[in-house]
């Protein structure tokens, strides 16, 4: 299967582990990722906040570039990029005047006929659990995992059209197929503070604190994420959260593709597992998985 691949800025910056593990997992599943040539940033929350036309235009520019690849599907691992691509395509389909303005701004046409996937949805719905299950060589036996979806991949459902916004299950399913022990918890799609990491760190600590505390209390070996903003916010703030609680938290925060790669039999360094702030390798080694 060939699909266009829109990595987004973080995956070539601070979230390289996500990018390399995505590529590895897709290669194992015989999926050819064709990177959208000269793709640009989607503008993320700053553009979405400050200028609606600019925000839609940036995503439309990426859609136009992807359309030229002549593939029917585009996959974005970053949930925010995914949501922006999807909104842009839908808003233009609904509002011809907006579409005209956007096309004048990007100076090209957008047909609006791509199927836009987030990575989790692509793997669970398009590739399918059967194909994934067949590739498992080294099941994640005995690994207690907290599935954390975050906001952007499921909310708001009228935009994402994916899974259940309050109690999503697709990540649970993938992790279970990989042999992990999936723990239930109440914060599956609660916010991590997202883009406020730099400007309002205290807010991020408050929000991630709830998540880390609950995951630790449930005896998790790791929190599993699908978003690089969630990864960074949870991975980097545990010391501050620990100071408030007079405790020391050391909960690894891992991309689901890294775990899938491990279960497919790939070595941990090749997946980027050695690059996180809280080291996941110790617990993986203890369980005989790395």
């Amino acid at each position, binding site marked *: 299967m060939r699909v266009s691949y829109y990595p987004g*800025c*973080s995956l*070539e*910056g*601070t979230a*390289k*582990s996500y990018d390399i593990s995505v590529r590895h997992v897709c290669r194992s599943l015989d999926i050819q990722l064709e990177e959208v040539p*000269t793709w*640009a*940033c989607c*503008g*993320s*929350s*700053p*553009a*979405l*906040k*400050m*200028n*609606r*036309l*600019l*925000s839609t*235009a*940036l995503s439309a*520019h990426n859609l136009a570039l992807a359309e030229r690849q002549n593939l029917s599907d585009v996959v974005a691992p970053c949930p925010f990029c995914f949501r922006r691509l999807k909104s842009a395509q839908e808003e233009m389909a609904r509002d011809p005047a907006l579409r005209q*303005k956007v096309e*004048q*701004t*990007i*100076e090209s046409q957008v047909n609006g006929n791509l199927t836009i996937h987030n990575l989790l949805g692509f793997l669970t719905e398009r590739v399918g659990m059967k194909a994934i299950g067949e590739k498992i060589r080294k099941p994640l036996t005995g690994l207690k995992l907290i599935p954390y979806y975050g*906001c*952007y991949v499921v*909310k*708001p*459902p*009228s*935009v*994402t059209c994916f899974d259940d*916004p*309050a109690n999503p299950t697709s990540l649970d399913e993938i992790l279970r197929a990989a042999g992990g022990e999936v723990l239930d918890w109440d914060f599956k799609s*609660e*916010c991590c*503070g*997202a*883009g*406020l990491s*730099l*400007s*309002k760190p205290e*807010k991020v600590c408050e*929000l991630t604190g709830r998540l880390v505390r609950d995951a630790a209390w449930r005896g998790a070996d790791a929190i599993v994420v699908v978003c690089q903003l969630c990864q960074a916010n949870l991975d*980097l703030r545990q010391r501050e959260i620990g100071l408030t609680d007079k405790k020391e938290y050391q909960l690894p925060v891992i991309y689901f593709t890294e775990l899938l790669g491990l279960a497919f039999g790939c070595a941990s360094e090749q997946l980027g597992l*050695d*690059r*996180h*702030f809280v080291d996941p390798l110790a617990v993986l080694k203890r369980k005989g998985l790395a």
Partner: protein
Amino acid sequence: MFRLTGALSEQEFLHHVVQRSGQNLLECLQCGKCTGGCPIASEKVSGPRRLIAEILSGMRNEALKNPTWWYCVSCGTCMTRCPVDINMYQVATALCELAQEGGIAPSERDIHLFEELFLKSVEKYGRVKELRTVAAYNVITKNPLKDMDKAVTLMRKGAFSPLEILSGWAKDRKVSRIFALARRTSEGGHE
């Protein structure tokens, strides 16, 4: 609770927000389900329900200075719960544009600064250069060593390279042009 008096000024503001956001705020029931789930609502940050009440009552200044829309991370929780499907982050965009046009200073300067630096990077290179944006933010806010220990640990692990801050990148002229055209159209006036 405020009620509309029908004064022209309040109608105009409400009309602009509704037009630009595409969200029919007049349907809002003031039920508060949005604020109940909003991650950024606090004692200091009112959250979406009150913000909508301000817009509905024509309190233009209060609404444009309300920190809620600066804090809003567009998580979509409010829209997920709202019985009449109001999308708050699109309201946030409308308020941000109206505040800019009205020359109203950002009530949350740090959030605004970060977002400006982020967009500057995108405008020039077509992509955000995360490390450089973070470094610029820390220098401007006079906190250049913030989280330095964490950065050093990550660098040692190879999560990113310090060279990324220093090296030059190819400019993306196409994206710079999109920024210019988008600004021109936005300034050219909304209907």
